């Protein structure tokens, strides 16, 4: 296991091995997202109370799930970067932060557009919405810190520390709707109970979630590979590649 860890921690090994994943992820995300949009927007039923507006769910929920799990992944990378001083982990933190920020913004924006027709307001300072806004600021903060002071090692460490500490926000987002009275409703999906919607709705939703993940890993991988080449521009393996 350690051998594997060290191999994939090497920028050269990672760059050469991960290239084959790009077309796979591109195809998967294109197909799955396309099918998910078709299924969710055209085939899935309207809701008995919310009518057609419920379809915003097929973008909002995957975005919200991905926003939180991409933060968790960023924090894990930050932890590895802090403890093992693995360069590739630092590059991973740096490249995932803007994607996470965009996805969080998408979750906030679609939630806002959904809130106006259903709740009657674009925004309310309830615990769920506020903690998700904080998630966006955490992504933005990590991004700003990482790019501060001319890409220095210190900036990388500061950004990683912030990313790890920000993990504390994730349980707050998750349980905000249970711990406090909020306008946002509690979770429709739990590990123990059946989903609070029929398959005709959670089917396309699950498909969109998978599609979002595929797209996310694609975007991350492309950015990370690009960043590795940029950082290792003087190393032999990049020079060799450029000559070809």
């Amino acid at each position, binding site marked *: 296991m350690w051998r594997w860890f060290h191999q994939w921690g090497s920028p050269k090994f990672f760059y050469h091995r991960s290239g084959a994943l790009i077309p796979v992820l591109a195809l998967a995300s294109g197909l799955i997202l396309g099918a998910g949009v078709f299924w969710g927007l055209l085939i899935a039923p309207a809701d008995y109370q919310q009518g057609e507006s419920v379809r915003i769910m097929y973008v909002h929920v995957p975005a919200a799930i991905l926003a939180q799990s991409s933060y968790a992944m960023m924090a894990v990378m930050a932890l590895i970067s802090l403890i093992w001083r693995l360069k590739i982990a630092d590059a991973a933190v740096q490249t995932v932060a803007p994607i996470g920020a965009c996805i969080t913004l998408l979750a906030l924006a679609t939630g806002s557009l959904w809130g106006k027709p259903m709740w009657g307001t674009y925004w309310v300072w309830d615990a769920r919405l506020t903690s998700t806004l904080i998630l966006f600021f955490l992504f933005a903060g990590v991004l700003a810190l990482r790019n501060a002071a001319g890409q220095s090692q210190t900036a990388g460490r500061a950004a990683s520390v912030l990313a790890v500490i920000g993990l504390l926000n994730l349980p707050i987002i998750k349980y905000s709707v249970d711990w406090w009275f909020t*306008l946002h409703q509690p979770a429709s999906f739990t590990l123990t109970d059946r989903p609070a919607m029929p398959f005709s709705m959670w089917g396309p939703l699950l498909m969109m979630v998978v599609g979002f993940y595929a797209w996310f890993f694609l975007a991350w991988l492309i950015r990370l590979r690009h960043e590795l080449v940029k950082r290792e521009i003087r190393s032999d393996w990049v020079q060799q590649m450029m000559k070809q």
Partner: protein
Amino acid sequence: MKLGAMKPQRRNRLLLILGLVGGLGLALTFVLKALNSNINLFYTPVQVIAGEVPIGARVRAGGMVEAGSIRRSDGSLEVAFIVSDLAGAAFEIRYTGILPDLFREGQGVVATGTLSQDGVFFAEEILAKHDEKYMPPEVAMALDATRQDPLQP
């Protein structure tokens, strides 16, 4: 992965970070506990009845719209209804204006406004709260007919 097998330097860094996150987590827990009532978006019917809501101050209060309690006036947008917590506590809300689409009996609402001396809540804004259940209209109609909820085993 055994902690003892790690290089001391790395182990120390791991412990330092865990300590930092743990300490901050503990501090955050206390802060959230202390601010608990401020983080709640609205006062519940129980709190309204118990007099926990400051009279005349602009606050939010919410609950479920009681079935059969909605009274609309002729010729104006004025509406009055009872909001309860389905466990006995209830208070009256009065509002003039357009209600959100989802406003209906049995739905949750969150009202912004002021509580008067006699316990009536005068709302300036009504927001609709919905639950986490979604289903197609046909299913909902069929359920209404049989009064059974398949999502509630």
